[in-house]
C-alpha cells in the first residue's frame, strides 16, 4: 500500500471514528453537566436505551424525524427525572439510584422493544439524517471529509459541545452551576436555588444521553436491536473523567474513544501482530491511565466537582 492510499484509508477510518464517537459525545456532555451539579448519575446506559427506544418507536409510528428526536430527548429526561427525584428530593444514595436507573432503562427499553426487533427506520426519517457536506468547510483537503461531511446530528454534537463550554465557563449561570458542584452550602448561602439548578441540569443531561442513544437507533444502525447501546453508556461515564468534566475536551475524547472502538476493525486489514482482544481493551486501559495521571498531577482544574456524589442537606450546612 503506497502512502497516498494509506492516507486515504486513514481518512476513511477517522470519518468512521467521528460517527462512532457521536453517541458517546452526547452522553458525555450530558453526564458532564449532570456531574457539574454535584450529582453522579450512573444511569447513562439506561437513559441512552430509553432515548434509543423512544426515538425509534416514535420515528417508526409517525415517520417524523423531529418527533422522534423530541421523544428521545424527553425519554432521557424522564429517566433523569426519576434519578433527580430520588437523589435531590429524597436524597437517596446516588450510586445505587444511578445503577437502578441503568437496570430500569434497559428493562423498559427491552419491554417496549420486544415488538421492534429487526424493524428498520422509515425512509422519511432517514432522509433527515443523510450526509450533508458543509460548504467551504467541507472543501478543506483531508480535514473537510473527516469532520464536515456528516449527518445533522454530528453537527449538532459540535454545537452542543461549544454551547455547553461557553455556558459553563463564560456565563454567570455556568459559574453558579460549578459553584453548586463544588460547595452547595456556600452557593445556597449566596442565594442560589440549589434544588432548581440540580434538577435542571440533571434533566438536560438526561435528555442529551437520550439523544446519544437515539443516534444509534435512528442514524447509526438504523434498525432496532435489543440492548443497542451495548455498554456505550459506561464508556461515556469513563469519558467524563477522561475529559475532566470539560465539554471542549469531551469532543476530542469522544472521537478518540469512538476511534479506539473501531480501530481493531481497520487494523485487521494489515498483517500486524497485535491481538484484537488487546485493542478491544484500549478504551478502558486509557481511562485507568488518565485516572492515575490526574490523581498524581493534583491540578485543580482536572479535579472532579468537590461535592460530587454527596446529597445536599440544607440543615447540615
Amino acid at each position, binding site marked *: 500500500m503506497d502512502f497516498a492510499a494509506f492516507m486515504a484509508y486513514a481518512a476513511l477510518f477517522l470519518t468512521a471514528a467521528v460517527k462512532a464517537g457521536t453517541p458517546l459525545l452526547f452522553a458525555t456532555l450530558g453526564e458532564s453537566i449532570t456531574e457539574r451539579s454535584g450529582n453522579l448519575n450512573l444511569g447513562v446506559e439506561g437513559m441512552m436505551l430509553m432515548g434509543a427506544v423512544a426515538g425509534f418507536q416514535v420515528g417508526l409510528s409517525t415517520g417524523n424525524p423531529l418527533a422522534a428526536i423530541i421523544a428521545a430527548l424527553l425519554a432521557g429526561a424522564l429517566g433523569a427525572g426519576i434519578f433527580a427525584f430520588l437523589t435531590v428530593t429524597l436524597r437517596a444514595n446516588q450510586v445505587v439510584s444511578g445503577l437502578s436507573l441503568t437496570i430500569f432503562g434497559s428493562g423498559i427499553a427491552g419491554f417496549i422493544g420486544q415488538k421492534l426487533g429487526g424493524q428498520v427506520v422509515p425512509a422519511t426519517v432517514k432522509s433527515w439524517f443523510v450526509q450533508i457536506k458543509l460548504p467551504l468547510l467541507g472543501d478543506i483537503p483531508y480535514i473537510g471529509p473527516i469532520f464536515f461531511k456528516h449527518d445533522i446530528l454530528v453537527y449538532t454534537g459540535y454545537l452542543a459541545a461549544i454551547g455547553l463550554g461557553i455556558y459553563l465557563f463564560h456565563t454567570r449561570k455556568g459559574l453558579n452551576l460549578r459553584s453548586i458542584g463544588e460547595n452547595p452550602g456556600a452557593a445556597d448561602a449566596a442565594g442560589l436555588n440549589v434544588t432548581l439548578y440540580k434538577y435542571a441540569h440533571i434533566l438536560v443531561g438526561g435528555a442529551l444521553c437520550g439523544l446519544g442513544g437515539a443516534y444509534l437507533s435512528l442514524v447509526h*444502525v438504523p434498525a432496532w436491536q435489543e440492548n443497542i447501546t451495548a455498554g456505550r453508556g459506561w464508556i461515556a461515564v469513563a469519558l467524563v473523567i477522561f475529559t475532566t468534566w470539560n465539554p471542549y475536551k469531551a469532543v476530542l475524547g469522544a472521537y478518540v474513544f469512538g476511534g479506539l472502538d473501531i480501530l481493531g476493525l481497520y487494523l485487521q486489514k494489515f498483517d500486524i501482530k497485535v491481538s484484537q482482544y488487546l485493542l478491544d481493551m484500549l478504551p478502558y486501559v486509557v481511562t485507568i491511565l488518565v485516572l492515575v495521571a490526574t490523581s498524581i498531577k493534583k491540578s485543580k482544574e482536572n479535579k472532579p466537582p468537590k461535592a460530587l456524589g454527596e446529597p445536599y442537606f440544607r440543615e447540615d450546612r
Partner: protein
Amino acid sequence: MTKKVIALVLVVMMAFSLALMTGCSAGTSGSKVKVGFVFIGPVKDGGWTEAHANGMNYLKEQLKVETMHREMVPEGPESKKAIKELINAGCNVIFTTSFGYMDPTLEMAKENPNVKFYHCSGFKTADNMSNYFGRMHEPRYLSGIVAGLKTKSNKIGYVAAYEIPEVISGINAFTLGVQSVNPNAVVKVRWSHTWIDSAKEKDAAVALLDDGCDVISQHNDSTSPQIAAQERGAFALGYNLDSRNAAPKAYMTAPIWNWGPYYVNEVKSIMEGKFKASAYHGGIKEGILDLAPLTDVAPAEAKAKVEEVRKKMVEGSFEVFKGPLQDQTGTVKVPEGKFLTYEEIFGTDMNWFVKGVEGKIEAQK
C-alpha cells in the same frame, strides 16, 4: 424517614422492572407433553433466536402441544436457573439453543432423568439428552456462489463474530463457494468480537466497504451489515432468516435455519414413547437449513448455478470440504480424494483459513 422509605421502594421497583423482560408464553393445554425453550436473545431478534422461536411456533401449531420459553438467558451457570424454572412449570421436554448452555444442560439432565433434553450446537449427549445442529457449511457454500458471481471489485467482505470452528468453517465454506465461480475473488474477514452489537457490526461492515469490498456477508446476528452495504450501494447476504426487509436494495439471499420440522419430529417421537438420545446434524437434504430464495438483486446466472449444486447436496453427492484444499500459506490441509467429516468441520482443528481468505485467526486452542 418516610422519604427514605419512598426512595427505597422506588429503587426496588426500578430494579424489579427488569423482570418485565423475561417473558413467557403458554399455548393451549391438552397434551401431556409440555415443551420448554431456552433462548440466548430476544424472540424478535431478527436472527438466530427468532429462527428457533419460529420453529417453536411451528411445533405448537402442528402438534398442538403446550410450549414455554425463557428469552435472553445468559450462557453458563445462570442458564440452569431458567431450565429449573421451566421444569418447575411442568415442562418435560427442554430445548436449549446456544453453545454455552451445553454443560448446564448436561447437569440438569443428570438431575432430572424424567425430562428429555436437547442441546443445540454442542457435542455432549446423555441418556436423556440429545444434541442437534445443522451442516451450515452447505448453504454457506451456496451463498458464496451468489457473492462470487456478483462482485465486481473481486473483494468480498465477511463480518464474523468469534474465532470458533462454527464461524471459521462457515467462512471457509463461503470462500470455496466464491472461488468455485470466481477464482480471482478474495474474502476479507473482520472480527467484530460480538454476536449482538448492531452498531459494532455495522462499523465492521463499513470498514470492509472502506477497504474496497462490494459484497458483504456476515456471521453475526443483526441486520446492520446489510444496511451498511445498502447505504454504500453495495450488496449483502444475510444470515439466520430471510431479512430482505432490512435492506431490500442490497439483500440477495441468506443461509437460513428452519428448525420447525426437526422439533415436530422429535416431540412426536417422544409422544409415541420412542425417544432415543442422539446427535443430529441435518443439512439441506433434511430441510433443517437452506439458502433463502434469491431476490432480484442477485445476479441472474446465480440461480441456475445454485440449483445445480443444491441438487447434488440433496442427493448427498456433494462434499463442501473436499480435497485438495490448501490453507492460506499453500499447505495442503485436505489431500486429493479425502474430505472432512462433520466432526472435523466443527472440531477444534478447524483453526485455519482456506486459500483466498484475507484475515487471520488468533492463536487459540
